[in-house]
Structure formats: C-alpha cells, structure tokens
C-alpha cells in the first residue's frame, strides 16, 4: 500500500483537490484569440497575394468578426483576473520569459490593427458610409495606400497570437498535459482552421469557397497529425505524461475529446468539405459550425484536463 494524504487538511478554494484556477473565460479567450488570428492571417495573406477582388469575404467581411472576438476575449481575460484594479501593471513592463506578458502586448497591437483594417473597408462594404471627420478620411486614405505593409504586419502578429494561445499553456512544466512544444503549433493550426471556418460560413462566392475549403482541408490534416504526434509524445514520455494521456485514452475526457473534438470537430467536417469539393451538395453552414464548435470544445478540454495533471499527490 502507498497512501499520501494531507494530514493537516487542505481545502484551499480553486487549488484543492484539483487545481481549477483557470475557468471558462480562459478557454473562451484561447478560442476567440485563435479565431481572430485565423481570420486576420488570411485577410492579410490574400491582400499580399493581390487576390483582394476574388476573396471578398476573406478580406473584407470576415475581418469584422476579428475585433469583436478580440474585445470579447480581452473582456473574458479581464473578468478572470483576481486583482482586476491592478491590471494596468501588465503594461508597465514587458517580460519575455512570460508568455502572458508578450501575449498581452501582442493583443494590445493586433486589436487596434483589426479595427483599422475593418474601418478601411467600410466604404467598400457599405456604400455611402461617411466618416464625418476630415482627419479620419485622411487616415483612411493613408491606410488604404499602405494596405500591403499593413497586411504583412497583421500576418506576423496573427501568427504570434495564434502560437501564443498554445504557448500560454505549454510554458507550464508543472502541468504535464500542457508542457509539450507541439501545443503552440497545434493551437495555431486549430486557430487558423477555425478562422477559415468563419470565412466559409460567410462567403457566398463559389471560387472563394473552394479555395478556402482546400486550405482548410490541409490544415485539418495537419492538425490531426499534430494530435497523433501529441499522444505519441505522451505515451513515450515519463510517468506524468502517460497519466496525462490516460485522461484521453479511457479517462474522463475520452468521449469529449475523441467524439466532439476529433470526430465531430475535424474528421466529419473535413469529409463534408471534401464531398462538397467533389460536387456533392452539403449545407453550407454545417462544416463551419462543426469546426468552430470542435475548436471551442478543444480549448475547454485542454484547459480543464491540463489542470488535473500534476507531479505530486
């Protein structure tokens, strides 16, 4: 027999018996951050490629979601802080060893940028739009003139944002489920894919839908590969990594993860997209809805399960 108990008693709120200091706001924020990163990345990408005209939903319409998602995400983050009045301390310093710090700065840069991006297309999207102020008109003209450099900056920042949503978790060696370097790329890929799903939902243009579907299929395959890779790493790893994997291989997260994330969130929508590309009729809203839902569940599962994995007791 081997038994370890807290003889002095320990029932600290949010710490015992299992750590649950991070709740739904963090999971939601990771999802929205990834979604915005995906949308903004592809908006930038197709502008750089000079395909603005062919991809109206990607470049103009879908980006409207990004600033909204980012603001909701930021509010969720803020809501989750326990010492809210001191949140400004985040912006008095930058600490490179802390993903939370450079992530907060990235958000500070990409959120306004996403607003500017959307604003610069207002007149195209809503004919008759009037900024009322001269200075805003001039600013708009300047942005439009420099759209390509803007697109580049946005692409770089959205990659950082997408990777950051994974690194935020993977930087914690105390939580074996999170502490794997594949998490950054995995969250980035998943974020890009959810971004594409949002675009797909909005787009009415046949050519655009096909292009987006094709990219999304590749991303989903990459994501599935990363997931297999993740588990291979865990199973070949130390005892705590094995235990982390066990949560998904027979443990309490097995059904949620494999059914809702992998099958309904990746494999099934990918099959539908592939069928649509082959000419089958598929309801346009179905694959994007599944992908977005799968992405959301994925973040919830990772945030919750990660906090259960530990070294001691």
């Amino acid at each position, binding site marked *: *027999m081997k038994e370890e108990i807290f003889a002095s008693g320990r029932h600290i709120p949010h710490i015992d018996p299992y750590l649950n200091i991070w709740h739904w706001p963090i999971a939601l924020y990771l999802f929205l951050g990834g979604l915005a990163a995906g949308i903004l990345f592809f908006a930038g990408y197709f502008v750089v490629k000079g395909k603005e005209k062919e991809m109206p939903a990607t470049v103009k319409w879908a980006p409207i979601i990004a600033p909204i998602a980012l603001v909701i995400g930021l509010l969720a983050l803020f809501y989750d802080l326990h010492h809210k009045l001191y949140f400004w*301390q985040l912006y008095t310093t930058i600490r490179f060893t802390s993903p939370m710090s450079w992530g907060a700065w990235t958000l500070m840069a990409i959120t306004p940028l996403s607003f500017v991006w959307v604003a610069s297309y207002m007149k195209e999207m809503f004919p008759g739009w009037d900024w009322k102020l001269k200075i805003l008109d001039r600013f708009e003209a300047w942005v439009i003139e420099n759209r390509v450099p803007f697109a580049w900056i946005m692409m770089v920042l959205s990659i950082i944002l997408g990777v950051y949503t994974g690194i935020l978790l993977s930087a914690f060696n105390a939580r074996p489920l999170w502490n794997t370097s594949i998490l950054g790329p995995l969250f980035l890929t998943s974020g890009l894919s959810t971004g594409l799903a949002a675009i797909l939902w909005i787009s009415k243009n046949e050519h655009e839908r096909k292009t987006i579907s094709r990219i999304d299929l590749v991303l989903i395959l990459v994501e599935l590969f990363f997931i297999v890779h993740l588990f291979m790493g865990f199973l070949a790893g130390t005892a705590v990594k094995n235990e982390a994997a066990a949560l998904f291989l027979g443990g309490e997260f097995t059904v949620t993860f494999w059914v809702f994330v992998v099958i309904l969130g990746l494999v099934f929508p990918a099959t539908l997209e592939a069928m649509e590309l082959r000419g089958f009729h598929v309801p346009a809203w179905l694959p994007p809805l599944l992908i977005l839902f799968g992405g959301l569940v994925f973040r919830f599962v990772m945030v919750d399960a990660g906090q259960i994995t530990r070294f001691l007791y």
Partner: protein
Amino acid sequence: MAIDTKKCVGCSDCVVACQTENNVPHGYCRDWIVENVSGTYPVVEMEFRSERCNHCDNAPCVRCCPTGASHIAEGGIVLVTHDECIGCGACIESCPYDARYPHPDGYVDKCTFCIHRVEKGQNPACVDVCPTHCLHFGDLEDPNSDVSLAMKDRKWRVLAPEAGTKPQLYFLM
C-alpha cells in the same frame, strides 16, 4: 530549509503558527502536513512532511509572472509584491507543488519564509514553534547555519526534482 522527516510527528503546529503569524485567511494555508504511509502490515512505514513553497532556485512562478510581482528577493526567498500582482493565476498554474493560492483580496499569496522575521534575524514562525525541532532554517551557503549543520550527516531528498525547479526544501531521511 531542511525538514527532518524522522522527527516530524504531524502535529500541524507549524500550520497554525503560520496562519496566526501571517494572518492567513480562514480556510487557506501556506504550509501543510503530508502523511505518507507505505508498505503492508506488519512492515509499514509512515513519513510526515511539513511542506510549503520550495523557494525554488529556478522558479517557474517567477519566470511566468507577466508583471514581475513574483520575484526572488536577495537571499533566495521567492516573494509576491501584492500591488504589482494582477491575479492572473499564471504562477499558480506554474507551481508543481501547488504552493500558491489566490488570496480572497485578489492577489496571489504564499509562504514568505516569514521574511519580516528573518530580516530581524529571527526564524520563520513555523521553525520556532515546532515542538520536535524538526525544521531547520538558514543560509545554505553558510556551513555553520542551522540548516547546513542539520543536513551535514544526513541523507536528504527534495520533492519532484524532475519538475526541474531546483526546490530548496530538503527532506532529511
């Protein structure tokens, strides 16, 4: 700090002393006792450990703090500056020993080795109150400090060294 597991009887005096000394809110604790029982009757072994923050040399809680509120003070004690802490919880996630907790007032709190006492040349409250004298505190670099002397002829181990944080609580066996 060194903890003599052969002497600790698990009375929890150190836990209460800490709660009183540091005004730890009701229901929270900065130190705790772990009872470990192993073996099968009649060969059974029992070990008591008085645990707290390990004041790690390679402290992940300091590394991941976005504002610098978590820091290592001169002498190696890991501290949180309350009015720089935003309560994001990153350090709580990062600690393999679950030694930190969110204080009801918002900031993150943990063992300070009673730095207010140490600065005056006193021991942490838990050390002074222990009826079996199983806790030894001091400067590890000073060969004549209480902790160095206690460790001198004894076997010791640290908890979860594989977490890579270079913990500074030494459990004498």
